[in-house]
């Protein structure tokens, strides 16, 4: 697969690994946050942690759209399916995210809710066309990557004059989340989360470009390296971050130049601002209410806004008390710091959202990383 396989080459990984070991200064501790779940996933799946020098530590960030979805938002989708009789279309990722009352979309479906997994918002539109007698709601989640397709879906629905289609918009914004983390007391005041730099978003940046990160680099004096999601991209980005730290720089660098430029996809940005506008505040799981961190549907498209169409009122719901997702999403804790990790909370019965998506820090550690600190003995055949 062109532009994929080349970036998974284990031989080159060894070379980058060698450079990293050569350049990371022994007396120094490097802590980098990979904002995106995509990077978290690559680190776990390819075993990148093993390849990094011991003094380079990766901190998982909140960049997993599923992980940051608060209970109250899932509750709204379930309410539409179970109480309002709507067909709720959603990406596979959201199906198992815990909601109130022990429910999740998959469990609501088992209770008779008409909840359908779609691959694309266009599929939800198609369902609405085919079943004109039913209300069809697209439960739309995601960062800037996923927002333009949703915008397109809404604009198409309007152009076609669909009368039974709406979107429950849960699109959130990356820069606001990064700012929120940088502004958090753990980072600013206590220094309990020492962040020396960020591995910046890959696919989000295709859409928004690299410019929006320049602010952090300057304002908070943090190096940012935008990197692709392939394992060599990640290793290279870490190397570039180590170099910035070593050299005392705090710049936005772009490792992912093959897909990201400074301005991003202007066409997609225009479409997004045609359909959406900023929400004054939005609850993130783990981060709480974050001002201007999400989008809502503009009033010109009000009839396609499920919140207005069904008169939905948002009801925040506290996470499970034992769950440390919040602290993990802010980089304050590790999955194994959670008392119920791997016992009460497992991928089969996730208590927190970080155990749901394979990009979630807890799920990634559970599925890929549990072997650590356990010796493996192989008696190889003669």
């Amino acid at each position: 697969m062109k532009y994929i396989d080349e970036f998974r080459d284990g031989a080159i990984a060894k070379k980058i690994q060698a450079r990293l070991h050569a350049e990371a200064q022994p007396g120094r501790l490097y802590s980098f946050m990979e904002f995106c779940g995509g990077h978290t996933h690559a680190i776990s799946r390819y075993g990148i942690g093993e390849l990094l020098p011991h003094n380079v530590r990766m901190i998982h960030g909140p960049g997993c759209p599923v992980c940051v979805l608060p209970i109250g938002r899932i509750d709204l989708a379930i309410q539409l399916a179970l109480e309002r009789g709507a067909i709720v279309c959603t990406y596979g990722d959201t199906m198992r995210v815990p909601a109130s009352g022990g429910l999740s979309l998959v469990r609501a479906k088992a209770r008779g809710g008409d909840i359908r997994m779609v691959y694309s918002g266009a599929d939800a539109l198609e369902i609405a066309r085919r079943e004109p007698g039913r209300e069809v709601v697209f439960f739309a989640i995601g960062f800037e990557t996923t927002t333009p397709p949703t915008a397109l879906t809404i604009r198409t629905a309007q152009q076609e004059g669909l009368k039974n289609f709406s979107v429950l918009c849960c699109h959130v914004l990356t820069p606001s989340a990064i700012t929120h983390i940088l502004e958090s007391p753990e980072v600013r005041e206590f220094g309990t989360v020492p962040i020396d730099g960020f591995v910046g978003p890959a696919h989000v940046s295709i859409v928004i470009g690299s410019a929006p990160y320049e602010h952090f680099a300057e304002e908070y004096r943090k190096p940012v390296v935008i990197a692709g999601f392939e394992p060599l991209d990640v290793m290279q980005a870490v190397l570039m971050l180590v170099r910035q730290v070593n050299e005392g720089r705090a710049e936005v660098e772009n490792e992912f130049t093959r897909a990201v430029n400074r301005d991003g996809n202007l066409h997609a940005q225009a479409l997004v601002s045609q359909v959406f506008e900023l929400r004054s505040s939005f609850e993130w799981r783990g981060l709480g209410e974050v001002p201007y961190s999400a989008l809502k549907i503009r009033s010109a498209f009000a009839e396609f806004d499920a919140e207005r169409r069904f008169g939905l009122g948002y009801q925040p719901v506290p996470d499970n008390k034992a769950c440390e997702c919040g602290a993990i999403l802010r980089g304050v804790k590790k999955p194994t710091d959670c008392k119920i990790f791997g016992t009460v909370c497992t991928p089969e019965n996730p208590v927190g959202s970080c155990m749901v998506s394979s990009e979630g820090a807890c799920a990634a550690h559970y599925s890929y990383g549990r072997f650590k600190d356990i010796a493996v003995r192989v008696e190889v055949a003669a």
Partner: protein
Amino acid sequence: MKKDYIRPLDIRHGRVDMGHGAGGRAAAQLIEELFLAAFDNEYLRQGDDGAALAIPVGARLVMATDGHVVSPLFFAGGDVGSLSVHGTINDVAMCGAVPLYLAASFILEEGFPLADLKRIVDSMAAASRAAGVPVVTGDTKVVEKGKGDGVFISTTGVGVVAAGVHISGANARPGDAVLLSGTIGEHGVAVLSKRESLDFETTVASDSVALHGLVAAMLAASDGVRVLRDPTRGGLATTLNEIARQSNVGMLLEEAAIPVLPQVEAACELLGLDPLYVANEGKLVAICAPDAAEAVLAAMRAHPLGANAVRIGSVTEDPHRFVQMETSFGGRRVVDWLSGEQLPRIC
């Protein structure tokens, strides 16, 4: 009942109705004109509530059952009918047995086209004949429209184990070789490619096939085969975890050794799936004594269904029973059980 007393089934335009499952004359006609016609063999012709069967004297019996509920019913490389034959034959074969007979229980949804049913039953009969394992007894029920999904087929197979053969998922020991008979993920990808809203074009066909011939060749080649299992639902990853758990061992795999067709890899990339968790219906995992591995591998490669057989890793001693893998990239990770259902992802 004289043949000429009733109109023949209208297989072209007819549909399954509740009467076909009510046990009366309509049911008898469906069985006679559709099922018996396709499966025709001396046992089924007995026409009794069960079949009386001949088995070798003194043999140990193996019995396995599987329900087949695939959607869509027809896919590249097979359909629910052939699958229901292969799946159960393979489960019998994975016990080290020679499969001899199949029983088939059909649960039909009211309104299902008889033409499709015939296509499925004919494919099932062809698979059964090709494998030399006849369907000797059966049952048909009809459920109301909306309470089924076209056709469900539960098949049960019996077979016999030769003296001296002892195969079980509990037999793996540290140091044993883990062998895989070929590329993984084709069945799952072929089926997924036909799912509404996922649909993509691929030339990948299901690998659905009966593996008892391959098993016979392996057992003939060596007495060092300890575990046999077909990595169906849950894929290779889950099957290896099952064995690790049953045998109380761990495993260490080498990612680079596991063969995956480029199209399967591409489909998995596109949908956010991992081929290790995608279903197979014509592959097997064998765990052998270390000194038997080469002979077994040679026997596999000499058989058409094992041409791409490889050694993918070793059994380890591990109280945590982790299946681990050295990634092609150079790292190491756990290969966990499938958790929940494998859903396409966007993130």
